[in-house]
C-alpha cells in the first residue's frame, strides 16, 4: 500500500544511519522531492525542504551524523522540515510575514498568534537542542557572556541565539510567559527582554485545582493583552471565527500527535527520536502549521500502515522504558534504542500541548483551561501521576530521568517523581544529568545506561 506515500514504496521499516539515509535518498524520484514546500500553497523553488540529513550536517548540524533515523519518506519529510526551521523563519520575514517569538508558555500563545493572518509563531525555547545538534558550545558561551553561565538549564542557548541574530530573524514581537514554569527559562526571558529592549510579559499561574475559574479569568485577561498587541502589530481585528479556526487546527495537530504517540509506544512503529520531535511540534508547529499538519498526516498514515501490516521499526520485545524530561542530547534516545530498549511513556513537560482545547467553550476560556492543565504548572505529584498512568498502560519496566545540573525544577522534582514511580510501579529508576554538548555520550552515562538495561533484563 503506497497510496498515502505519493507513490513511493518505503523500504522495510528500520532505524538507519546518516550514511544509509544518504544512499536511500538517491532512490527518491526528483518529482517527489519537488512536491514538498513549506508555507503552502506556495510552490516556489526556494521553499523546498526535502533534503537528506547530510545537507543539514554540512550547514553545522553535525550531531545528525551520529543519530539513527526512521527510514520512511514521512520521517525524512519530518527531518527536512524541522531542520529547515531557521531558513523558514528568515524566508517568512522576506515574504512579509511577521515573526513572533512565543516563549515559555508551552502551548497556547502559538494558538493566538496563528489566528492572525501572516503571523508566524516560533519557539526560541526549542533552540536548547542547537548546541547538541551542532556539537558546539557557541550559544552556551554567548549566554554565559550575557549573564547565564554553567549549572543552568541548556535552554540558556535561546539567549545566545537572540544575541547572535543568525538563528532566526529579530522578532517583530516577543511574548514571554512566566510564572509556574521554571526559573532558568524565566531568567533567559528576562535577559532576552533586556537585550532586545522589549517584551510582552504574560502570567502563567500555578494550577490550584480548587481555584480553576479565577485563574482562567486571569489568563483570559492576559490573552486579551496579547491579542491587543497582535492587533496593533498587524492592523487586523481578531474575529472569533479566526480564533476558533486556529483552535481547530491546533486540536487537529494534538489529536494526530496523541495517536502517533500511542502507535509508537504500543506498537513500536516509530522510533523515540522521531516521536520526541513530533511531540514538540505541538508547541509551535515548527513555524508553519499548514505544512506541519500535512507532515503529521503523512507520518500517521505511515505508522497506521506499519501497525496494520505488523511492521514495527523497533523490536516490540525491547525493554520498555518510561522517560522523564526531554533529553537535551538526542543521541541518548538513539543510544537507548541501540542497546535494546524502546520508549513507551514520556513526560517531557509539554503534555498540556497534547490536551485538546474544548471547542464548545468560549475560545479564550478554553485555551486558558488547557494551559492551566500544563504539566509544569501543577505539582510534581501530578507530573508523576501523568507518567505513571502511561507507564502502567504500556507496561514500562524502568524509568530514566535525564536531568540538567542546576535546572531548577530538576533539582526539586526529580527525586520525588522518581520515588513515586518506584513506589507505585515497583520499577527501577535511573537518574543522570545530561552532560554538555559533545560528539559522543560520556562514558559514565553510557555505562550507567548499560547497567540499568542489564538490570531490567535480569528482572524479566
Amino acid at each position, binding site marked *: 500500500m503506497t497510496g498515502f506515500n505519493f507513490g513511493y514504496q518505503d523500504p522495510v521499516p528500520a532505524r538507519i544511519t546518516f550514511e544509509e539515509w544518504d544512499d536511500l535518498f538517491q532512490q527518491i524520484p526528483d518529482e517527489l522531492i519537488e512536491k514538498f514546500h513549506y508555507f503552502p500553497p506556495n510552490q516556489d523553488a526556494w521553499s523546498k525542504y526535502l533534503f537528506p540529513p547530510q545537507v543539514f550536517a554540512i550547514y553545522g548540524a553535525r550531531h545528525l551524523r551520529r543519530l539513527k533515523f526512521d527510514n520512511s519518506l514521512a520521517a525524512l519529510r519530518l527531518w527536512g522540515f524541522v531542520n529547515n526551521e531557521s531558513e523558514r523563519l528568515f524566508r517568512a520575514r522576506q515574504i512579509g510575514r511577521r515573526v513572533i517569538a512565543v516563549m515559555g508558555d508551552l502551548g497556547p500563545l502559538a494558538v493566538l498568534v496563528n489566528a492572525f493572518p501572516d503571523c508566524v509563531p516560533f519557539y526560541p525555547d526549542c533552540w536548547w537542542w542547537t548546541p547538541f545538534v551542532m556539537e558546539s558550545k557557541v550559544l552556551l558561551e554567548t549566554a554565559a557572556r*550575557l*549573564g*547565564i553561565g554553567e*549549572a*543552568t538549564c541548556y535552554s540558556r542557548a535561546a539567549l545566545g541565539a537572540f544575541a547572535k541574530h543568525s538563528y532566526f530573524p529579530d522578532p517583530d514581537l516577543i511574548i*514571554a510567559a*512566566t*510564572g*509556574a514554569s*521554571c*526559573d*532558568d527559562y*524565566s*531568567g533567559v*526571558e*528576562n*535577559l532576552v*527582554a*533586556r537585550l532586545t529592549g522589549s*517584551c510582552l*510579559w*504574560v*502570567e*502563567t*499561574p*500555578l494550577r*490550584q485545582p480548587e*481555584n480553576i475559574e*479565577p*485563574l482562567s*479569568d*486571569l489568563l483570559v*485577561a*492576559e490573552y486579551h*493583552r496579547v491579542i491587543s498587541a497582535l492587533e496593533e502589530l498587524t492592523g487586523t481585528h481578531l474575529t472569533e471565527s479566526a480564533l476558533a479556526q486556529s483552535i481547530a487546527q491546533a486540536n487537529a495537530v494534538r489529536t494526530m500527535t496523541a495517536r502517533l504517540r500511542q502507535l509508537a509506544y504500543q506498537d513500536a512503529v516509530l522510533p523515540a527520536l522521531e516521536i520526541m520531535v513530533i511531540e514538540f511540534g505541538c508547541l509551535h508547529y515548527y513555524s508553519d502549521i499548514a505544512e506541519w499538519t500535512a507532515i503529521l498526516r503523512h507520518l500517521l498514515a505511515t505508522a497506521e500502515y506499519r501497525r496494520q501490516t505488523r511492521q514495527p521499526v523497533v523490536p516490540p520485545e525491547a525493554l520498555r522504558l518510561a522517560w522523564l524530561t526531554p533529553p537535551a542530547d538526542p543521541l541518548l534516545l538513539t543510544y537507548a534504542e541501540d542497546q535494546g530498549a524502546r520508549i513507551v511513556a514520556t513526560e517531557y513537560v509539554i503534555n498540556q500541548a497534547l490536551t485538546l482545547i474544548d471547542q464548545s467553550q468560549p475560545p479564550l476560556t478554553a485555551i486558558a483551561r488547557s494551559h492551566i492543565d500544563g504539566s509544569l504548572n501543577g*505539582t*510534581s*505529584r501530578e507530573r508523576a501521576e501523568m507518567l505513571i498512568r502511561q507507564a502502567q498502560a504500556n507496561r514500562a519496566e524502568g524509568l530514566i530521568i535525564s*536531568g540538567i*545540573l*542546576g*535546572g*531548577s*525544577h*530538576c*533539582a*526539586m*522534582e*526529580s*527525586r*520525588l517523581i522518581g520515588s513515586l514511580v518506584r513506589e507505585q510501579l515497583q520499577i527501577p529508576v535511573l537518574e543522570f544529568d545530561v552532560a554538555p554538548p559533545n560528539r559522543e555520550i560520556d562514558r559514565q552515562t553510557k555505562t550507567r545506561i548499560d547497567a540499568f538495561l542489564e538490570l531490567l533484563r535480569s528482572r524479566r
Partner: protein
Amino acid sequence: MELINRQDLAARRLNELQELKARGRKLAGYFCLYVPVELLRAAGAVPIRLARADYPSSQLGERHLRADACPFCKSSLEKLLSDPLYRLMDMLIFVNTCDMMRRLPELVGTRVSIPVFQLYLPRTAEPFPARIAEFEHQLRRLADFVTRLTGTAIDDQHLQNEIEIGNRLRSALRSIEALRVSPVPLLTTGELFDLISLATLLEPADLLPLIAQIKNRATNQVFNRQPTPPRLLLAGSIIAEEEREVISLLEERAAIVADVICTGARFIEGDITTGSDPFRALAEYYFNRIPCPCRRPNTALFQHIRQLIAERQVQGIVFQTLLYCDPWRFEARDLRRATGLPMLEIDHDYSRQHFEQLRTRIEAFVEILTGAGK
C-alpha cells in the same frame, strides 16, 4: 557595647511561643516577605518567619533533595524535621517566588504533617487589575485557610488595626534603618538585620518599645568605628539568621549603608493604605513591593538599587548569592553594568570552609574602593 542581644531574646521568645501554643494559640510559620503577616495576626495566628539556615542542616537536606537544590530550601526542609522553633508551627505558608520555594511545600507535605498553604503571587510584576484581583482572591483564600485552623474569623476592623500596627512597626524600623546611613554609621547593618529578624519573631507591641530604646542608645553612643569607611550596598539571596558572620566580616572593613536583601531593608519598605478595603489594600501593597528578582520584569528592583546608590553615596556592591539561586545569579552581570560600581561577587552554600579566603577577598575589595593598594 552590643545594642541587641538577639539570641537571648530569641531564646526567651521560644519559651513564650511554647506557652502560647500550650494555651491553644496557633503558630503560623512563613518564609517569604510577600506573606501578609497582618492578615495572619487578624485571624488570631502568631506569625513567625522561618529564616534560619546553616550548613549542617543543608547537608542533611540532601537526603530529600538533589545536591543542586537551593541550600536554603534544603536547610528549611531539614529544620522542619529537627529545629525546635520550626517544629512548633501549626501551619506553614509558602509563596511561589522562585521555582525552588514554589516546589518546597510539596516536599514538606511528604515529610511533615503540618497544614501547608501555598500563596500564589503572580510572577509578573506589572500591576494590571486582573493580576491584583487574583492576588486579592489569593489573600482571601489564605484568610479562609488560617481561620479554619485558628477558629477566629477576620473582621475588617481587626484587620485595619493590624495594618496600622504593621505600618507603625515598619515606620519605626525605617527610622532606625536611617541610622546606618550617616558618615559614621550609628547602627550597623548586622544590628539592623537582628532587629528585623526580631520583628518577624516578636509581637509588635513588644518590639516597638525595644526599637525606641535601641534608637536612643544608638544615637547617644560614642562609636569607635572607622570614620570614613567605604560605603557598600549589599544585594543578593536571602541572608539567614545564622549568616551574620558574613555581615560582620564586611563591617569590620566597610559600612553597609544600604541593602536589598529580603531579610533586610526590603522587609520594611512602604506603608499599607489605611481606610479602604483592607484586603484590597493588602493585595496592592504586597503585590507592589520592590520586586524580588524572580518577578518579571524586575526593572523596579534595579531602579530602587540605583536610587539607593545615589542617595546613600554607595561606592561598591557586595553581591552574595546562594549556590543555585538562579533569580539572583542571573542578575549579577546586569547589576554590575547598571550601576557601574565595583562589585564583589560571593557565592556560598553556608559552609564556613572558605571563610578566611572570603576575608582576604573582602580586604582586597575594600582596598580597591579606598585606593589603599595603589
